[in-house]
């Protein structure tokens, strides 16, 4: 890891890439690190490509905007790779040497021989786990896919602490109005309505995150 970790999250609108980035950034600042978080908005419609970017560092971060050269790439939906629902093509464009990729999928993503070779040259690591399945089974809703993705990230990288992420989650859903965009806010209400109580929401989200560990598989090139 370099002293600054740049994380690109690619998914589809409604999967919570913006929220995941926010929670991750919040957790990092709670851990005493520095973070900047920014979403890259297209028209931010449901199931359209959506990306967000998180930078985490021990020093002050000035750089902002799209992360062109990530250390970590998180793919929230298999279609990002298989259907090219992605701002950045191919999905690992710009990945730094030694970089990581985390893919939501029940099975390993299909890669061409060229892609395998390119990733091998980069000394990259690719992990996959069934984030949406876990979200449904443990959290009771596919809207917790982003939680599973964060759980996988923490499990693999330990970039933030478990207490940090717990506090960040509480802040995000526990009250106060979060603002990323109007559409995200509307989705929030839908999510909240699925739970009797906020505390239940937090517990279930944590459960989803922690359920990921044993399911993580690594792809070898």
């Amino acid at each position, binding site marked *: 890891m370099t002293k600054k970790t740049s994380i690109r999250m690619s998914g589809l609108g409604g999967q919570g890439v913006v929220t995941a980035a926010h929670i991750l950034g919040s957790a990092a600042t709670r851990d005493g690190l520095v973070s900047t978080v920014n979403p890259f908005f297209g028209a931010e419609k449901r199931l359209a490509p959506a990306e967000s970017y998180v930078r985490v560092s021990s020093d002050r971060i*000035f750089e902002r905007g799209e992360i062109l050269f990530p250390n970590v790439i998180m793919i929230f939906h298999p279609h990002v790779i298989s259907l090219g629902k992605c701002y950045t093509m191919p999905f690992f464009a710009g990945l730094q040497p030694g970089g990581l990729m985390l893919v939501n999928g029940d099975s390993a993503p299909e890669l061409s021989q060229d892609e395998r070779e390119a990733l091998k040259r980069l000394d990259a690591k690719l992990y996959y786990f069934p984030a949406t399945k876990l979200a449904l089974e443990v959290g009771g809703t596919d809207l917790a896919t982003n939680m599973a993705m964060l759980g996988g990230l923490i499990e693999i990288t330990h970039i933030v602490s478990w207490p940090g992420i717990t506090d960040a989650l509480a802040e995000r859903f526990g009250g106060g109005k979060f603002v990323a965009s109007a559409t995200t806010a509307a989705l929030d209400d839908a999510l909240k309505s699925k739970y009797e109580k906020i505390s239940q929401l937090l517990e279930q989200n944590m459960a989803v995150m922690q359920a990921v560990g044993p399911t993580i598989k690594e792809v070898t090139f």
Partner: protein
Amino acid sequence: MPEQKVVAPEFMFTEAAREEQFITGSEAVREAVRRANVDMAVSYPITPQSESMHLVGDIWAEGYIKDYYRGENEFAVMSAVAGAAMGGVRVFTATGGPGTMRALEMFPTWVGARLPIVCAFFTRGINSPLTIQPDTIEMAHLLDTGMIMLHAEDAQDLYDMILKAFIIAEQTEVHIPVGVFADGFFVTHTRDKVRVAPADIKLPPYKPYSAPVPVMDMENVPFRQMRDPFVMKSNYVSYAAHASWQQEVLAAAERARPFIRQYLGGLIEVENEQADVLVLAGGTAVCQSREAIAMAREEGIEAGLIKIKSLRPFPGEELRALTAKAKAVIVPEFNRVGWLSRELRNVVQNPDRVVAGPRVFGGMTMPPDLILSEIRRYARE
């Protein structure tokens, strides 16, 4: 109605305790307006500005602002805030990109009518094909409206500049609008640490009767007072009047310089200015330049940074002095036309030293590497 204590601007800006929040630029706008003792705000949606005026609406609902509504289009909104300002209240609004262009006719009118409106502009591309992404080209169109133009680097700057803009704008001898510019998405939607004053204090109210022009309330000096005189035909020697009026507007912006120095610490901010190679930038280009300069330092190359905070008034004298010995001044920009490098070329000696670029536009992010390669090239020469 929340209880807020009026405090002196100096207290708000320097002495008051600061709480650190991890918020977006849009939320920083809300926090600034919450403490600015704003009477009225008018909104209209446009990406990437919308969130900021939603949030201003929310604090109106909480009682921090006395009146707020959604106008029918940007031109109407800019007209409505002009009417409100002429009626003697403190107003705030925001727009960006095509919204700025839609409303453009109003900006020189604000200035001519000496209205101390504070407007936040969240920049966005304005060309066809349509883009909603950041691009600072709209600023080129506003350079000569007469408005004061401040350019925020990040959410912290945005918060500070909005609050301070009210105080600068409302000085009797200044009393012209201030546009606070921030790059859409890169600032509005980016979450960052922002240090804010406590929410239970606010700035002193606007004093309409200290304005350099009469307030349109039929409570002050009566009879035939137009805020915005129709110095058209039928008037004796109207050309000189018009010209003098424009000169006075220019003079008002000049008079803002000491207040910008007092409250923002200068029209520019410099680091390592004795370096042979300097980078001059505004807005997000500053952030990317900071990264590039740090990368250069790791390679053993020293480069200096000039962050331009005030575009109008323009820090011409400062820039001329600072760049006197530089071998090259690199001007990275987030727009196609390179208006900042043009501005700089007009004031420095040997303008050939101005490197007009690198540039990105249409929403692209500028990788610090682009700036780094320019630094390398001119440091070697």
